C-alpha cells in the first residue's frame, strides 16, 4: 500500500487561532476517506493543507512522497490543476458559463482545446442523470443538479485525488445520497482517491474509512472487523 497523500505533524494558525496542531493523516491510493469531527475542529483547514491550497506553519504534506508544502506556489498550483479535483458545499459553478462549459473548465484551464474539452465533458451528463441540461446556466439548475455538475467538473480531468468539503451539505438527504453514490462509483471506476469532509454519518458510510479531527488533531478510527458484543 502506498500513501498518495500524507500529513505529518501539520500545524497551522490563523493569527492567534490555532486551527491545526500536529495533525497526522495518511491516505492510500484509490481509497475513499471521510474526515469527520466537530464544527471548527480544523477539517476544512486540514483538507486545504492536503490539497496544497494552504501552506502549514509546521510539519509536512506529501503527495506521492513529494513535499507539497515546500514547493513554489506556481508549481503547487500547476499540480492542483493537473492532479487534483475539487467539490465544495456550494457547487461554485461559474454563473456565466453553461453547465457543459463548467464541466469542461478544468480541461480548458489545462490547455485542452475547446471542442475536445466539451467532447470530454458531454458523457458526464448522461452518467450523472443530467441529460438535456448541458446548456443551462447555474441559476437554472436545482441544488442537486448543480452539485452533480460540480461533481462532473471535479472528476472530468481524471484527477488522482478528489477533495470534497461537505459536498452534500446543502442538499436534502436523498439528493445528497445520490450525489455520494455517483461520486463514489465514478471515483472507483477511474481510480481516483477521494478525501471527503462531512459531518453526516450517512454520507461518511460511503467511505472506506474515516478519520476524526478534534481540536486540530486528526486520528484514524480503527477499521476492520473488530469484536462487537452486546
Amino acid at each position, binding site marked *: 500500500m502506498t500513501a498518495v497523500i500524507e500529513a505529518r505533524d501539520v500545524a497551522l494558525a490563523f493569527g492567534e487561532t490555532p486551527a491545526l496542531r500536529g495533525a497526522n493523516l495518511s491516505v492510500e491510493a484509490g481509497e475513499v476517506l471521510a474526515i469527520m469531527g466537530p464544527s471548527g475542529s480544523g477539517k476544512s483547514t486540514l483538507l486545504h493543507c492536503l490539497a496544497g491550497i494552504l501552506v502549514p506553519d509546521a510539519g509536512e504534506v506529501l503527495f506521492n512522497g513529494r513535499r507539497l508544502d515546500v514547493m513554489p506556489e506556481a508549481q503547487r498550483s500547476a499540480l492542483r490543476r493537473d492532479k487534483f479535483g475539487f467539490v465544495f458545499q456550494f457547487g461554485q459553478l461559474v454563473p456565466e458559463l453553461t453547465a457543459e462549459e463548467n464541466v469542461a473548465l478544468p480541461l480548458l484551464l489545462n490547455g485542452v482545446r475547446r471542442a475536445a474539452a466539451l467532447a470530454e465533458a458531454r458523457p458526464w451528463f448522461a452518467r450523472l442523470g443530467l441529460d438535456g441540461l448541458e446548456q443551462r446556466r447555474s441559476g437554472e439548475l436545482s441544488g442537486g443538479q448543480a452539485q452533480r455538475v460540480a461533481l462532473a467538473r471535479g472528476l472530468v480531468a481524471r484527477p488522482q485525488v478528489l477533495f470534497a468539503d461537505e459536498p452534500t451539505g446543502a442538499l436534502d438527504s436523498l439528493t445528497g445520497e445520490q450525489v455520494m453514490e455517483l461520486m463514489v462509483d465514478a471515483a472507483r471506476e477511474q481510480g481516483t482517491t477521494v478525501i471527503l469532509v462531512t459531518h453526516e*454519518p450517512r454520507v461518511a*458510510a460511503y467511505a472506506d474509512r474515516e478519520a*476524526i479531527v478534534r481540536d486540530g488533531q486528526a486520528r484514524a*478510527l480503527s477499521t476492520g472487523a*473488530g469484536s*462487537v*458484543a*452486546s
Partner: protein
Amino acid sequence: MVSPMSVPLTLLGLLEREPSHGYDLKRDYDSLFGRGKPLPYGQVYATLGRLARDGKVVAGEAEPGDGPERKRYVITEAGVTEFETWLKDPVAPEPNLQSVLFTKVVLALMLGRDAEEYLDTQRAAHLRRMRELTELRRTGALVDALLADHGLFHLDADLRWIDLTTARLDALAEAVRS
C-alpha cells in the same frame, strides 16, 4: 432503561465504585438508570446472590440490624475484570440499544474511565455497520434497501447522540460525579 442483560453488569459497575449494601445499589440504580422503572428488591438480591455464587462479588458479614439486606457487598478481581471487559466492548450496532450505550457512558464517567475512547470505539462499530448497510442498500433488492434504510436512520440517530455526548463529556463528567 437498562436491558435485563446488563443489570448484573450495571450492579458490578456500581460496586466497582465502592462496596455497598443492597439498598444503596438499588437506590443508585433507580436514580441513575431506573427512569421510572425501579429495580425490585428481589431482583437486586437475586442478582447479587448469583454474582456471589460466580465469584464476582463477596458478601461481608451480616451487620446488626434486621433483614438480609444488612450485608455489604464487595467486588472481586474477577468481577472487576468482567465489568471492564463489558464496558470496553462496543455494543452491537443494532438500532434501539441506546439504553445500553447510555448506561455505559454514565458508568464510565462516574468511574473516571476514558469515556471518549469508549465512544470512539462505539462510533467506529456503528460506522462499520452503516457501511455494510449502505452497501446492501446500493446492491440489494428494493426490500433489502428499505430495511437497510431503516437501520441506517436509527444508527445515524445513535451516532448523532454519540457526537453530541462526546462534545459534552467534560460537563457530563462533572454532573455525574457530583
